[in-house]
């Protein structure tokens, strides 16, 4: 887990940034960081590399995709080699050169920062360190934008996060009409604000009061919740063998959208591609909704049926992950899967079904 600012021995600070100076600060930060942030595109708001002159979109309700791609691109080159046998090092894999100079994601949602902390448990373990994810993570400064007006699908307060959640962020910005107030949460955040170099220090107590007022107002606007309190008392097999999964999965078309938009879904595939003699090994996002995901070469498939795959997704998020790590559910309540699902499958409803399930026999 990342250290809180207190543990690092750093004093919490608030900075007020006049919106008139915002663009100047963003330009300043480009000197030291590759910038990422929300950008409006044809199909909605995405988190992307901010090209020169492009400012992060700071007024939006929902982004279609989360910031997970900053550490975990949808398709990423990991290894390469040549198949040309006249070359001395043919067929010997080497790591692809990737630019891990400092990055900053500006304007991301607090629940997406929390999600990155959950994903970190998968990629940074005591046994193995995924160098691609971890190097990108270590290079990144997370500058969040608090959510003053939560979207219709937001249930983050019941999923271990919230509109002003600080977990995983280095700076939390709050929009206060003509200014942003930045709360510095870590040394990385302090470095970013130093390079940003606009804004004035503001009174800590007063600023925290303002944050708390906005937070309470925002939290009041979150109307729905995910119910998971009784899941830890039910065994994996008890839930796995429950009779409701066919009903849950009935309308699912296994499109996988829920997994791609999810900020906590990390599953991936590894594929080789060769052009002439140059061979590259890629890591691509994969989805547990696909039957190929688990299909053995023999033709046997342990999750052959749609119901098995839908069950896997919800069991992983709400039961396997919480049981394995004891850090809560693998969901931050962003609501993207609910909003994007073409057949209206709703994780809140599934969780409720699981949570309230009692085998009468």
């Amino acid at each position, binding site marked *: 887990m990342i250290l809180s600012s207190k543990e690092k021995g750093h004093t919490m600070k608030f900075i007020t940034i006049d919106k008139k100076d915002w663009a100047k600060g963003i330009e300043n930060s480009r000197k030291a960081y590759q910038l990422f942030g929300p950008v409006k595109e044809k199909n909605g708001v995405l988190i992307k590399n901010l090209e020169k002159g492009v400012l992060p979109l700071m007024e939006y309700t929902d982004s279609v995709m989360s910031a997970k791609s900053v550490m975990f691109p949808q398709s990423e080159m990991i290894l390469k080699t040549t198949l040309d046998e006249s070359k001395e090092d043919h067929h010997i894999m080497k790591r692809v050169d990737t630019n891990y100079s400092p990055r900053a994601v500006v304007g991301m949602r607090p629940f997406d920062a929390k999600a990155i902390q959950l994903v970190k448990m998968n990629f940074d373990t005591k046994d193995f360190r995924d160098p691609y994810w971890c190097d990108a993570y270590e290079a990144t400064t997370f500058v969040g934008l608090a959510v003053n007006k939560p979207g219709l699908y937001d249930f983050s307060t019941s999923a271990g996060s919230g509109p002003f959640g600080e977990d995983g962020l280095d700076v939390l910005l709050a929009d206060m009409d003509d200014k942003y107030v930045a709360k510095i949460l870590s040394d990385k955040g302090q470095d970013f604000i130093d390079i940003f170099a606009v804004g004035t220090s503001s009174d800590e107590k007063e600023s925290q009061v303002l944050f708390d007022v906005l937070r309470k107002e925002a939290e009041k606007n979150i109307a729905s919740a995910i119910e998971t309190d009784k899941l830890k008392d039910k065994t994996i097999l008890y839930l796995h063998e429950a009779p409701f999964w066919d009903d849950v999965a009935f309308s699912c078309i296994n499109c996988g959208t829920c997994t791609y938009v999810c900020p906590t879904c990390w599953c991936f595939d590894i594929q080789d591609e060769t052009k002439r003699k140059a061979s590259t090994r890629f890591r691509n996002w994969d989805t547990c909704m696909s039957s190929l*995901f688990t299909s053995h*070469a023999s033709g046997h498939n342990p999750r052959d049926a749609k119901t098995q795959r839908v069950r896997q997704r919800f069991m992983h998020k709400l039961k396997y992950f919480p049981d394995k790590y004891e850090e809560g559910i693998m969901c931050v309540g962003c609501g993207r899967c609910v909003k994007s699902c073409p057949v209206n499958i709703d994780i809140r409803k599934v969780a409720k079904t699981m949570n309230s399930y009692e085998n009468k026999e």
Partner: protein
Amino acid sequence: MENPYMPYPVRIDDIEIATEDRSLKTFKFVFLNKEDEEKFSYQAGQFAELSIPGVGEIPIGIASSPVEKGFVKFTVFRTGVVTTHLHNMKVGDIMGIRGPLGNWYPWEKLENKNIVIIGGGFAFTTLRSSIIYMLDSANRNKFKNIDVVYGARSPGMLLYREELFEWEKRDDINMHITVDGTDDPEWKYHTGFVPQIVEQNAPKADDDTYAIICGPPIMIKFTQPSLVQLGYRDDQIIMSLENRMKCGIGMCGRCNIGKELVCKDGPVFTLEELNQTPKEY
């Protein structure tokens, strides 16, 4: 910490056709860098990703034994894209190996115990590794009686035939070799399915006896009742699973059975452990 996706470069040193139908071949690999062989220090029961640049990777049990030095061996069934490509490669070709991966048979717990090894078909690779390990002069006195029940469809489908027949002659291991059927009038060993041979020949259970079982699902399904008949408890039955894998290090998400990952928490589980997980294998 090293990049766990980076394969060690190896050269194919030898290729042996392992079964009469030529669907299995045993590949012997030598590490291009001597220090990689030390890094690839493994235990019997572990697996590795065979990594062919431009084609892909496959998780395969290690058939050589930790006591065999200077090379590693894998016996591979030709079934998909990567295994078919591998079957068409030749001695001298360069490829990669990533590992060792997964857990292993619980050798510490098995010390001073009687061991019953039960294998069927081509799921005998990590069992071969285990037998060689136990029979090694430095290890044999760590274990009590060793019984092996191994069956295949026909004599020509048995893996490692020469070694099997050598072990058969030894007095420190009890071999029970069987085939489903044969028209060879000279066949000196058993005829019949593995579950039946287990029931007739394997030792009865006691607190000091453990069974390690590997084979096709159908064999495992019908061998379990035989072991129950002989009095084995679920925690005395040790099994090795297979599932589709990519990363082999517990990250890519596809090989899970409940919260356990076959690649990292397994592939070796006791039946007692498997009884607590969904049967998604």
